[in-house]
């Protein structure tokens, strides 16, 4: 009860502080430079704002822990029998709470920004704070007007409606916060690029300072996408890691843009080039992050995993987003004459600079494919009211062939020198690797029943990059972060390819006692037994798989029937080994005798996760080295 009040009023108070900061930072900016110190009030009020949002967030968590059903959000998303861990996680497992988390991260990041930007010009800092406070004010309004997490319910219900059980999962507890850290990090990049543009503050020091933020949001965004993917793999029982579903795509689009920015910012730092392009990427990364939230929350996307939701909220975000983009584009055109690229004449095709530009082209191409594949259905529905969806073949067809030149350029691009390099005589080890990669891919081509030239060339390209980056990694520790990430990327592409090529799947309806042959193995359905969990009842089936040599492995897939809300989920039984995952999942059918059974052998599954973690680790090392 009391926490409802505390939470709500700290939000209202926080809103007024952001208004104050908005005007105060503008006022100080217009007053101009008196000294180089930031007015102390900015520090005080920013920390107060952060404190209030934290207070509000904690109140919501406490309301969830206490199962205070006078709070509407708690009522709709919690239940007394839910384990404590998921009561807490339920705080951000819903729309209102997750937006409050967005706001929390926004205020936290601007606070860190203020503390960490001491070496920057004062006017630039003030402007960055100003832009950031516009975003923060927008989110305060959004929360208070359309999605107040502290709405009262009267009479107070005795029991809550419970959290969707598929969200009751450890991966999904941390997936949204991590993803948000990535999204929100891009808001800082957005605000400070605009400020830098107006102040013409594109110094080396600025590039270094903003690079940290690019790294931070890139690391979190990559990690967030990975977690979502892992969750979909084992909790949804689909047995895959990526489905080209719109909800997944909207997180991938800012990733492409941010990855392009991550590379471009080095050119800016080292060569003072590509200033306008940096700004454009900053604006687009942030816009894509915001529209991601908008599209997921609005219900506009015809996604196979759309959550039921409220269109009015979408309209608010859309309007807000539109204003921000308009503001950004206006500022860009008005101030872009400030930009002078001094080094433009010193530009040569064979250099690190141009290889990074080529990387950017590829990123933009991938981005446009995903963008078109995601929004074209919406577009068509508005115009012709036809409902369509665009499946994986579209994306595979347009992305896979372009990966070949992309991987090959990646194998030599990073080693080129800045400004200008020249063709050296061919090195022996490279030819050696080249031949080896061709041999391996031909071997795979020969071994496979179903032959596909494109895939073979792609395998060759990724093996080549894999070998080259592995050798580079062993040779020296310079540029460790870049090398590790690129190595991880080659491993990722290889694992995805092998996963696609070697995986096998079997599905059928089976009764107890049935046995079916699949892939020279015998699948036997032994029995079922029921069990009671904390807030669910479960049915555990036991299966035995016997191979030609009579070796057996046992599987115990499970169906959980949650009591509040009354939903069934399947818990897959997954046996992970170095080369393959064995994935067993069952489902109820109406006819009680039959179970819907699905058994998959997923090759190199664990390497998809490990390689993505390596990519993230590369980023992390880069960040730590920079901060030092």
């Amino acid at each position, binding site marked *: 009860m009391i926490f409802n009040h505390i939470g709500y009023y700290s939000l209202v108070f926080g809103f007024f502080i952001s208004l104050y900061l908005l005007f105060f930072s503008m006022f100080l900016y217009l007053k101009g430079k008196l000294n180089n110190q930031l007015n102390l009030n900015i520090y005080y009020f920013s920390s107060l704002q952060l404190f209030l949002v934290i207070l509000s967030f904690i109140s919501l968590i406490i309301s969830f822990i206490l199962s205070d059903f006078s709070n509407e959000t708690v009522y709709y998303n919690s239940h007394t029998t839910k384990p404590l861990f998921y009561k807490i996680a339920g705080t951000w497992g819903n729309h209102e709470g997750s937006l409050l988390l967005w706001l929390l991260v926004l205020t936290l990041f601007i606070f860190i920004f203020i503390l960490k930007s001491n070496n920057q010009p004062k006017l630039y800092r003030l402007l960055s704070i100003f832009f950031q406070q516009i975003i923060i004010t927008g989110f305060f309004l959004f929360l208070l007007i359309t999605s107040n997490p502290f709405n009262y319910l009267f009479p107070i219900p005795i029991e809550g409606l419970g959290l*969707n059980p*598929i969200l009751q999962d450890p991966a999904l507890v941390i997936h949204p916060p991590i993803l948000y850290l990535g999204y929100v990090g891009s808001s800082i990049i957005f605000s400070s690029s605009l400020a830098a543009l107006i102040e013409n503050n594109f110094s080396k020091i600025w590039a270094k300072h903003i690079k940290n933020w690019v790294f931070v949001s890139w690391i979190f965004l990559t990690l967030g996408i990975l977690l979502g993917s892992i969750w979909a793999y084992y909790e*949804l*029982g*689909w047995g895959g890691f990526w489905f080209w579903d719109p909800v997944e795509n909207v997180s991938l689009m800012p990733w492409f843009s941010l990855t392009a920015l991550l590379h471009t910012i080095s050119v800016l730092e080292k060569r003072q080039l590509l200033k306008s392009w940096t700004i454009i990427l900053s604006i687009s990364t942030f816009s894509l992050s915001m529209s991601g939230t908008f599209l997921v929350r609005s219900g506009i996307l*015809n996604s*196979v*995993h*759309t*959550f*039921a939701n409220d269109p009015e909220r979408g309209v608010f975000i859309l309007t807000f987003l539109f204003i921000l983009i308009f503001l950004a584009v206006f500022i860009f055109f008005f101030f872009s004459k400030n930009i002078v690229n001094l080094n433009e004449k010193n530009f040569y095709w064979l250099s690190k600079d141009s290889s990074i530009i080529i990387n950017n*082209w590829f990123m933009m*191409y991938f981005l*446009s*494919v995903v963008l*078109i*594949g995601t929004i*074209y259905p919406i577009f068509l529905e508005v115009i012709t009211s*036809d*409902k*369509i*969806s*665009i*499946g994986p*073949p*579209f994306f595979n*067809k*347009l992305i896979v062939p372009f990966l070949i030149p992309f991987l090959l350029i990646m194998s030599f691009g990073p080693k080129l020198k800045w400004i200008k390099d020249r063709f050296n005589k061919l090195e022996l080890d490279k030819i050696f690797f080249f031949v080896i990669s061709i041999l391996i891919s031909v071997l795979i081509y020969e071994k496979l029943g179903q032959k596909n030239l494109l895939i073979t060339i792609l395998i060759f390209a990724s093996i080549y990059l894999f070998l080259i980056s592995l050798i580079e990694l062993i040779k020296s520790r310079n540029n460790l972060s870049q090398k590790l990430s690129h190595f991880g990327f080659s491993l990722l592409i290889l694992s995805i390819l092998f996963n696609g090529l070697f995986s096998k799947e079997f*599905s*059928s*309806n*089976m*009764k107890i006692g*049935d046995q079916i042959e699949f892939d020279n193995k015998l699948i036997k359905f032994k029995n079922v037994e029921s069990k009671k969990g904390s807030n669910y009842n479960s049915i555990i089936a036991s299966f035995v798989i016997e191979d030609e040599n009579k070796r057996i492995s046992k599987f115990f897939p499970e169906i959980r029937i949650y009591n509040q*809300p009354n*939903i*069934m*989920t*399947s818990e897959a039984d997954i046996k992970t080994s170095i080369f393959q995952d064995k994935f067993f*999942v069952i*489902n109820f*059918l*109406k*006819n009680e005798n*039959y179970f*819907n*059974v*699905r058994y998959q052998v997923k090759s190199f599954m664990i390497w998809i996760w490990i390689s993505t973690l390596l990519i993230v680790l590369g980023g992390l090392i880069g960040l730590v080295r920079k901060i030092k």
Partner: protein
Amino acid sequence: MYGKKVKLRIFFFSIIFLAILLTTFLILKSLEENVVYFISPSDVKVLPELSKKKIRIGGMVKKDSIETNAKEILFIITDYKSEIKVSFSGSIPNLFAEEKGVVAEGFLKDRNYFTAKKILAKHDENYMPPEVKKALESKK
């Protein structure tokens, strides 16, 4: 004549232009081939011709319509105006149940019979395909 620098620039821009043209062409062509239309059982009845292409049909699973045997699952998708029989063999998602929303992807055999290749999952037990929602609302 133009200088070397201008020539280089013209060359550069024409390459970019060509690249953009090529990309647009590729994307549009691929779109044309890979679009899957989403229709309701009522739409199936009034289709001018049955296409051989893959489509999605969305609606509710009719009450008491699910039948199972070792090979396949049979059920009826309804939008409370028309209905269509569906046969499916493969794995079903958790939230597949009678009187819940469902989206099936596959091929039309005739106007009353649909062979599904995939049944799509929904995250949310309250989710309904928009058509069904409209159909239900207009019934009230």
